[in-house]
């Protein structure tokens, strides 16, 4: 898809094509631009730095190559890390020129070490961010890391990360975030206007294509007319790390509408704007330190759970579906308190194992999601 103003159908078709051949999409971009691509581990990296250096940030969620043979990593790692290692070690990401790995969790943080020790020859940058903006010295420390990241990006790309390029990259990323927020608003205002499968495809595509392209895709879907809308059987809020294809299809199959989300590959990734004036690096620091509550960052007290249920209420959801990635400790740690709060509030709640690519799991998932949707009809 090269059109600046694609139709909604074109946008969705392209998102599907990117899902089906993510490495092909990256190779295509590289061939057109003559530039480099950086593989990023989830969840939070100041991708604007990479864009300002003329590179394409490509976020790996581990489900890009469902058929990749398993890598030799411990069985107690999550599917995101296992999938990423399987695809990297299996040679599926040869189009990637370098790797950037944030300190999202113990497993992802260690990934950079294991890649290095395993002989990965491409440049690697570990970005260790502060766990909370409330800690003394956190802004100064993060600013230092962001500047070091920019220096690394310059080395990898051979292009300077100028203030002007960074401002442009921030503006493009902000536009993409605004477009995603509009998509979410539309899903809340007109339940069913965007299917769960479409939402999952669009959320994923933003990890794989340039920001400008993704913004155009989102705008096209938001602008789509509402003639196809139907009255949903349930208005579901999705929590968890990501909605894999199987669960999205199950929701659509059950006649549910996704009206809000707290997904890692969703709201958490796209939320929050960086200031477009003033010092650009400082703007990235501020954006990171004022992120919405997330299981991978530190928040005192009930901040994350309050924030989650505040958004459940704001989007008019009548159910909360927690999509679990097995072995994801940050998410699993919050789960009992999320479940307890849902019970207190009388909100129907279900936690399902929704790891992508689990053979034979889709049928069982569909049954569970279907039963959940039928509850309280």
């Amino acid at each position, binding site marked *: 898809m090269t059109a600046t103003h694609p139709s909604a159908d074109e946008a969705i078709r392209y998102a599907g094509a990117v899902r089906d051949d993510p490495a092909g999409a990256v190779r295509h971009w590289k061939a057109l631009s003559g530039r480099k691509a950086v593989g990023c581990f989830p969840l939070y990296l100041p991708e604007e730095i990479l864009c300002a250096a003329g590179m394409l940030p490509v976020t790996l969620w581990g489900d890009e190559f469902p058929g990749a043979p398993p890598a030799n990593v411990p069985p107690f790692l999550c599917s995101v890390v296992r999938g990423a290692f399987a695809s990297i070690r299996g040679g599926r990401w040869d189009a990637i020129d370098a790797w950037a790995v944030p300190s999202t969790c113990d*497993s992802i943080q260690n990934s950079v070490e294991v890649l290095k020790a395993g002989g990965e020859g491409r440049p690697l940058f570990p970005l260790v961010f502060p766990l909370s903006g409330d800690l003394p010295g956190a802004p100064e420390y993060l600013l230092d890391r962001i500047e070091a990241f920019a220096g690394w990006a310059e080395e990898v790309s051979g292009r300077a990360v100028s203030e002007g390029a960074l401002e442009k990259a921030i503006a493009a990323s902000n536009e993409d975030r605004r477009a995603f927020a509009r998509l979410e608003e539309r899903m809340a205002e007109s339940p069913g206007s965007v299917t769960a499968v479409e939402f999952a495809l669009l959320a994923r595509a933003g990890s794989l294509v340039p920001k400008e392209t993704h913004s155009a895709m989102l705008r096209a879907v938001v602008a789509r007319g509402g003639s196809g809308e139907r009255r949903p059987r349930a208005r579901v809020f999705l929590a968890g790390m990501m909605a894999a294809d199987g669960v999205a299809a199950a929701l659509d199959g059950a006649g549910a509408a996704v009206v809000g989300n707290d997904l890692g590959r969703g709201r958490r990734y796209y939320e929050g704007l960086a200031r477009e004036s003033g010092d650009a690096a400082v703007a990235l620091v501020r954006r990171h330190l004022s992120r919405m509550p997330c299981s991978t960052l530190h928040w005192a007290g009930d901040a994350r759970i309050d924030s989650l249920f505040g958004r459940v209420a704001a989007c008019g959801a009548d159910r909360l579906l927690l999509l679990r990635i097995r072995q994801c400790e940050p998410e699993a740690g919050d789960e009992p308190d999320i479940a307890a709060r849902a019970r207190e509030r009388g909100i129907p709640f279900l936690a399902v194992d929704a790891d992508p690519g689990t053979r034979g799991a889709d049928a069982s998932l569909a049954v569970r999601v279907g039963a959940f949707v039928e509850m309280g009809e």
Partner: protein
Amino acid sequence: MRERLGATALMKELMLRHFQAGWLAREQGRKVAYLTSGAPVEFLHAVGVVPVYPENHGAVCGVARAGGALCRAAEERGYRRELCSYWRIDWGARTAPDKSPIGGLPPPDFLVCANNICRTVVKWYEGLARFYRVPLVLLDMPFRHGDEEPAARAYVRAQFHELRGDLARLTGKAWPEDRFREAAAFSREASALWEECLAENAARPSPASAADHFILMGPIVTMRGTAEAVAFYRALRDELRARVSRAEGAVEPERIRLVWDNLPVWHQLKPISAFLAERGAALVGATYTRAWTERADTSDDEAAALADAYARVWLNSGIGHRERVIRNVVGSLSADGVVFHSNRSCKPYSFGQEEIAARLKADGIPCIVMEGDMADERDFADAGWRTRLEAFLETIEGEGGKKR
């Protein structure tokens, strides 16, 4: 069978008093804080707060084989089985304290969590803060992928400096710098003595096994910063030296010397040691016990010195550093091989072991990676362990025979 170390009985008494202190704190007008094993307890001793270690409780429950039942109790509350078993044991003991050999832990007045051992503890302690409705002090120590970053050092130091004010507020006491310096000095001395204890195992036969060390490390984890810990490790060191002078070994005859990587399988400590000893194999060292030899330099700015030391602990460092340490331990203890416990409860310790093992093997150091869990006995395949360990020992003996 050689006699037990005399220090073991003393240690049990010390640990008993440690656990009792938490329960008696309120009667004594003292506050109780839960803290992670990598948190700077010296600050708490300065203000007279009783430190309580949920991780240590997990280990105690593991040794007593109460881990599975407590984990199950936590799972019934909604905690997934894939979570760290210490974490699950801690939550399990909250609803089923009768299943804990020490009746669970006293409730805390506040929490101190340092993420230099893992990020799991952050989630664990956030949950505790919500449950008890108590303040949580977080110490964020950036993981060191390579050399220390000056900005990271400044960041950690800033938090350690602020900790003094936090604790003064939480306890309502003025910050007693003299007591803080005294606690830091005790901590340094205890750590140096502990290192000397471990170093005695360079002798052939080694006077203690790593299984002994796992048990004897209780005070360095929970009581560093106190005069009692210093006295205990001085006595232990002297006892070990006496053993060395008499050429008494923990395993006799000692034919194979092994190093252990990762936390022990607490519930199998005795059976594994006995199994190895029957075959002339001694665990002479462990990376985990060595982690508590890290200590602060003497400094006018004690808080900064502690910040630097706590930030460079074993689990907060990359694989390259860990590999170098393992090679040093293997070399200094003249070990014949390494047993890597791939511990499903400790992802940061375990993810990367395969890579380290591969590099050691390439240099002719025999290694084996064994899967298990430190405290949940439901995740342990006894027969598999025995078979694989036996084969490993036979391989080493074969190789050693060739070399000898």
